[in-house]
């Protein structure tokens, strides 16, 4: 009898809280989006499953002694997991288009306006009842506009760990929604003539340039903005492993083993931050709205800067490629290509959009460094 009572008390159903049930549904919802709608499945499947596991009553899998809680402590609190993923991104990224046409960095810079506009939006939300974001919170939310998952997780884990779950979910969800969010904005801000601009082919880039590139970026970062150095440093390390041509084994490890293993762990750990108390709060709705705004503003800023470059170069730059400045590699560049093809069936903008696209990765890492330097403690 006593055993039966003990057993009943140990059952999940006897301890299930309303919020946990909802969060398990949210976890299933994220996995549904990942599988059925192909929303960034590599991250959203583990994040969703992490939410599911962490919200199982009694088990405490996401707690300090639970498996996922321990993974969180080792990999996310220390910042190591997002940095290792960033190394993998660097090893997977070809910066050739950027090296061939460095001016596209300005498009990547302009698109970061989405971040800072969102920062103001987040602070402004405090005027509404129920919101109380600190400047740290606002900074962590704003980085969603960078359209860069690992950067967002890294910054949020440093500035606002409580919001990490919502921020990561928003960041990856909107990255997946780039093909829906961007085209209308791109069409609204450009003329038919601008969209039809055919750009001149990129010059080939030598291996020496590719090898020097990581050093140049890292040294500039070290001199001006050391707070961005972990992010930029790991990105550039990955890229150097890729380009230097003498460490094929390590490059493969960064592109495959490390990034795959860490992605599973990071996803589970982030999912454990999807608890009812933190996630089913008004703040989350605010974050989702602000995130959408950030993407729209970033896209618009990129396109507008594209128009400036169109003018300045006398029509040599297709302003559409500015939209790729938000990063979301390589989806934003693909979207640019698609919108460009609507106008002219032979105008392939993909390679031209890769420049601003990877510039956006550097740009949002720089923005993250600024936010960390000025609001971190």
């Amino acid at each position, binding site marked *: 009898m006593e055993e039966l009572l003990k057993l009943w008390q140990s059952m999940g159903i006897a301890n299930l809280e309303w919020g946990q049930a909802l969060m398990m549904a949210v976890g299933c919802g994220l996995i549904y989006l990942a599988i*059925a709608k192909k929303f960034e499945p590599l991250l959203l499947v583990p994040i969703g499953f992490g939410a599911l596991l962490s919200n199982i009553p009694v088990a405490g899998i996401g707690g300090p002694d639970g498996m996922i809680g321990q993974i969180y402590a080792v990999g996310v609190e220390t910042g190591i997991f997002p940095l290792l993923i960033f190394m993998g991104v660097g090893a997977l990224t070809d910066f050739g288009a950027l090296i061939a046409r460095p001016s596209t960095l300005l498009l990547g810079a302009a698109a970061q306006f989405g971040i800072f506009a969102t920062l103001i939006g987040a602070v402004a939300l405090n005027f509404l009842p129920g919101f109380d974001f600190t400047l740290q919170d606002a900074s962590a939310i704003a980085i969603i506009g960078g359209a860069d998952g690992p950067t967002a997780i890294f910054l949020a884990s440093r500035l606002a760990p409580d919001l990490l779950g919502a921020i990561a979910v928003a960041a990856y969800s909107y990255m997946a929604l780039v093909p829906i969010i961007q085209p209308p904005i791109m069409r609204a801000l450009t003329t038919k003539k601008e969209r039809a601009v055919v750009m001149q082919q990129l010059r080939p880039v030598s291996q020496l340039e590719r090898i020097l590139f990581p050093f140049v970026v890292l040294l500039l970062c070290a001199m001006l903005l050391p707070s961005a150095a972990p992010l930029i440093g790991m990105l550039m390390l990955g890229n150097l492993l890729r380009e230097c041509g003498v460490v094929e084994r390590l490059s493969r490890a960064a592109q495959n083993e490390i990034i795959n293993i860490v992605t599973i762990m990071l996803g589970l750990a982030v999912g454990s931050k999807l608890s009812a108390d933190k996630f*089913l709060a008004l703040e989350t*709705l605010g974050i989702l709205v602000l995130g*959408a705004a950030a993407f729209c503003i970033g896209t618009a800023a990129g396109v507008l800067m594209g128009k400036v470059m169109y003018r300045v170069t006398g029509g040599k730059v297709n302003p559409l490629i500015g939209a790729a400045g938000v990063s979301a590699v390589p989806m934003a560049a693909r*979207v640019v290509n698609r919108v460009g093809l609507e106008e002219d069936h032979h105008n392939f903008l993909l390679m031209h959009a890769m420049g601003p696209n990877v510039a956006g990765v550097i740009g949002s890492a720089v923005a993250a460094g600024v936010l960390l330097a000025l609001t971190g403690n």
Partner: protein
Amino acid sequence: MTDNTLIIESLTLMGIGMGIVFGFLLLLVGILRTMSWVAGRLLPMPPAPDPVPPVLTPSTHGSGDTAGSDDLIAVIAAAVARYRTRP
């Protein structure tokens, strides 16, 4: 705890244990059958994970997906509302 108490404890444990194992797996039999029935009803219709082999490129959603963003917010808004209005 004397050895006799232990024996009784372990007999109880065996009873409860086999009961739960059988109960759990019997329940699972029922649920799996229901699941297969439901899946069979859903499958003829087009939605949800297509049996098409996974596409290699991240899908560029057609216009039919335009509701995706709203869906996300709507679903979570509903969840938040429910959670906050709980008794």
